[in-house]
């Protein structure tokens, strides 16, 4: 058997094609694509909900949708966008690209990775199944008690919310743990922390934030569910319970979550800016530090969501200051990007247009954000449409524009075809114009006194024109998103010109291998000497498909390389697990348990528990002994 190195690697790493491989894959690239497809489907669902709301609000006194349904729509829209679209989408890109960017062959725990995806999918289906019985969560995405207590919302709506989010939390937590270990332990030799791509820094910061922030939300939901189903009194005011406790627990999670959403998006921007400015990023170190400090300060600002609850003035002053402080790292980042663009020779391709759109929108969102950090202003404007405008500028501008930039930037790598540039530009302008037309008027509506979360309004309050503009804008926006989808389905999947390994002249390792990359990512594990390996080390340009240094191909087994945490010195050869059904079986068992808790049927809980434990035992069962 005289196989060449790449044939040998092919044999070791390729998974059998077919449905079986979809269900059993542990390849981070397949899992990353699954995340992206699923998250995009949720984006479309959340988008349809938004369009329904905007249709209802287009004219005064419309009654297309009743108040009850409207409550479910805005709640599910917020929940979907925050929990089931943005984070999983960014985790999808993270899954696909972190190993490629650090020159590894997979994530540290591939089976855990598959498990995280299945939990995400099942939790999403669980949450959306609430529509089937007409009982979708209806108390807003932050689900404040006491409204969500059993007395005031007795039906299953809120149980879907609490159980669904605890369920989803499993996925996000294991995903983050996996990123932390992967990033700290599997970087290619030489890629010390201070040479790590900024997107990888961002995913690392986000993952730490998830690990520290999410438990608070999980516990709050567990307590609320115990109140609702077992008659406990955590949030029962009649027995002395504290409604503010929910708000604290929610926002201890909720504010870091804004950065959990925002940081990876910023990482995408930091990857794209230098490539399309044709020069090194200015202030690499500052950007890396800004990423980490944002994540940390993000934990100190949660109370600013509660300025209207009547807290002591001193604590308000503290949190107000912290909220203003957090703009400093953001400002550093913006200046570093601008400097890079100005000092470079920018090429205005679609991914870069979305980045510029992001910068524009985000600065406006940031300015209105600082306005809120001033307590007196916040108290005037809280719960008005001004807030709706602000957080869409931050969330849509801060996360969705970069996500579209990433789609245009990375789809050629993932599927091997270039997207259509004309359609790309068209989609950008539709989205950019549509976005501003939808959300800018909402600032004015807020100042004119229109409250959020109302299903209709009377004519003659001076709101009609602005609402109509916002509704028209949302259709333009939807059209733009449709163009992206068509572009992907038509050109990204088949018609587009072959992308070749490196269509953009990129600086990071994912461009050193073919598009799409082989199952083993790189024939040879690269040795990295700087922050822009592909620009500094011409010998790495074809490391994905040509072997020079046989020792670095690790072709003896299903292996990748482990390195030290700080300096990335080679430390070990790690054998990676093969495709297996155990993650999906375990995840399925856990889903059954959650259905059991929802229906309060003990046999179902037990059944699910048995499946989950069986799956877990098969998973953890050691293979044959080493020797």
């Amino acid at each position, binding site marked *: 058997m005289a196989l060449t190195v790449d044939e040998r690697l092919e044999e070791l790493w390729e998974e059998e094609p077919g449905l079986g491989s979809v269900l059993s894959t542990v390849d981070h690239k397949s899992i990353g694509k699954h995340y992206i497809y699923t998250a995009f489907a949720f984006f479309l669902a959340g988008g349809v909900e938004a369009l329904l709301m905007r249709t209802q609000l287009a004219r005064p006194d419309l009654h297309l949708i009743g108040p009850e349904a409207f409550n479910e729509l805005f709640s599910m829209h917020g929940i979907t966008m925050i929990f089931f679209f943005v984070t999983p989408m960014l985790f999808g890109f993270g899954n696909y690209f972190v190993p490629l960017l650090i020159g590894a062959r997979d994530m*540290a*725990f591939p089976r855990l990775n598959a498990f995280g995806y299945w939990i995400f999918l099942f939790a999403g289906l669980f949450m959306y199944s609430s529509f089937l019985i007409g009982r979708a969560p209806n108390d807003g995405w932050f689900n404040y008690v006491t409204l969500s207590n059993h007395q005031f919302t007795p039906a299953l709506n809120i149980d879907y919310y609490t159980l669904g989010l605890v369920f989803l939390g499993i996925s996000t*937590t294991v995903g*983050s*743990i*996996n990123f*932390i*270990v992967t990033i*700290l*332990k*599997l970087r290619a*030799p030489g890629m010390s922390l201070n040479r790590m791509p900024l997107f990888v820094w961002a995913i690392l910061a986000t993952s730490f934030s998830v*690990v*520290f*922030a*999410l*438990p*608070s939300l*999980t*516990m*709050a939901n567990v*307590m609320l569910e*115990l109140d609702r189903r*077992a*008659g*406990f*009194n*955590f949030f029962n005011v009649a*027995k*002395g*319970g*504290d409604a503010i*406790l929910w708000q604290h*627990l929610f926002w201890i999670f909720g504010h870091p979550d804004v950065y959990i959403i925002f940081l990876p998006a910023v990482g995408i921007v930091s990857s794209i800016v230098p490539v399309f400015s044709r020069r090194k990023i200015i202030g690499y170190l500052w950007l890396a530090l800004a990423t980490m400090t944002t994540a940390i300060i993000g934990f100190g600002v949660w109370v600013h969501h509660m300025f209207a609850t009547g807290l002591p003035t001193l604590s308000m002053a503290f949190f107000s200051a912290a909220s203003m402080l957090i703009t400093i790292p953001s400002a550093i980042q913006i200046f570093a990007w601008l400097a890079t663009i100005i000092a470079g020779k920018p090429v205005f391709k679609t991914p870069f247009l979305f980045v510029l759109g992001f910068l524009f929108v985000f600065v406006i969102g940031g300015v209105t954000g600082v306005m809120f950090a001033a307590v007196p202003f916040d108290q005037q404007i809280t719960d008005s449409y001004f807030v709706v405008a602000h957080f869409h500028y931050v969330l849509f501008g801060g996360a969705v524009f970069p996500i579209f930039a990433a789609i245009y930037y990375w789809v050629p790598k993932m599927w091997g075809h270039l997207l259509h540039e004309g359609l790309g530009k068209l989609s950008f302008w539709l989205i950019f114009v549509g976005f501003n037309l939808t959300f800018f008027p909402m600032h004015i509506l807020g100042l004119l006194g229109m409250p959020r979360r109302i299903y209709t309004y009377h004519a003659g309050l001076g709101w009609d024109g602005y609402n109509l503009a916002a509704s028209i804008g949302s259709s333009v926006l939807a059209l733009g998103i449709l163009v992206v989808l068509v572009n992907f389905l038509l050109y990204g999947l088949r018609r587009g010109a072959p992308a070749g390994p490196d269509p953009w002249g990129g600086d990071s390792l994912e461009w050193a291998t073919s598009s799409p990359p082989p199952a083993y990512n790189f024939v040879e594990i690269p040795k990295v000497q700087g922050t822009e390996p592909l620009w500094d080390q011409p010998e790495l340009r074809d490391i994905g498909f040509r072997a020079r240094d*046989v*020792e*670095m191909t*690790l*072709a*003896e*087994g299903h*292996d990748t*390389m*482990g390195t*030290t*945490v700080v300096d990335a010195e*080679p*430390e*070990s*050869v*790690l*054998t990676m697990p093969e495709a297996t059904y155990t993650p999906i079986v375990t995840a399925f068992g856990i889903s059954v348990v959650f259905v059991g808790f929802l229906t309060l049927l003990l046999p179902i809980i037990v059944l699910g528990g048995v499946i989950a434990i069986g799956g877990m035992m098969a998973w953890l069962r*050691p293979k044959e*002994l*080493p*020797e």
Partner: protein
Amino acid sequence: MAVNPATAEQHGVGTSTGISNAKLGVWAFLASECLLFGALISTYLLYHDRTLPGTPTPRQVYDIPYTSVSSFVLLMSSLTMVLALAAIQRGDQEKLRVWLMATALLGMTFIAGQVYEFTRFVQEGLTLKTNLFGTSFFVLTGFHGAHVTGGILMLLSLYGMSLDGRLPTERAEVVELVGLYWHFVDVVWIVIFTVVYLIPTGK
């Protein structure tokens, strides 16, 4: 094919230098566990003196000498856990099983003590629904008890694996990981014991 001298340590589990992937993963997991407990402990602190008129207060129900003894039992189990790890690293399967079982038994003693304590509290009229003190106390300590129980199950599985001969010295890291978890659960108990039982309350 030649073995790469730079990278040839062991295949599989990890290395002796630095921290292995699995260990780092467990550390990250425990960090998030800390915050789950953190949320419950803060809730307890907020609620422990919110008792309704005529319902039991912390001072009335706590029996500190009793709980001190059961805390001591749990603390000792950390010691036996360390001995179990040392045994497997020496390759002494016999002693490994002795110490694993000792750790599990100490854990079970602690749980039995907790069950007895809960029963007594219920007899004194403090249930999960009596007042907020009851709710937050039982949920916090019960959540911890569930963690100890999970740990006992892991210890017993390790015991079974060793009997089957499936826990050779090369797999010592598995014992180390379970040990990490076990020590963590112990340390959390120290915090709970201090915050819940020792720090005096108004009522």
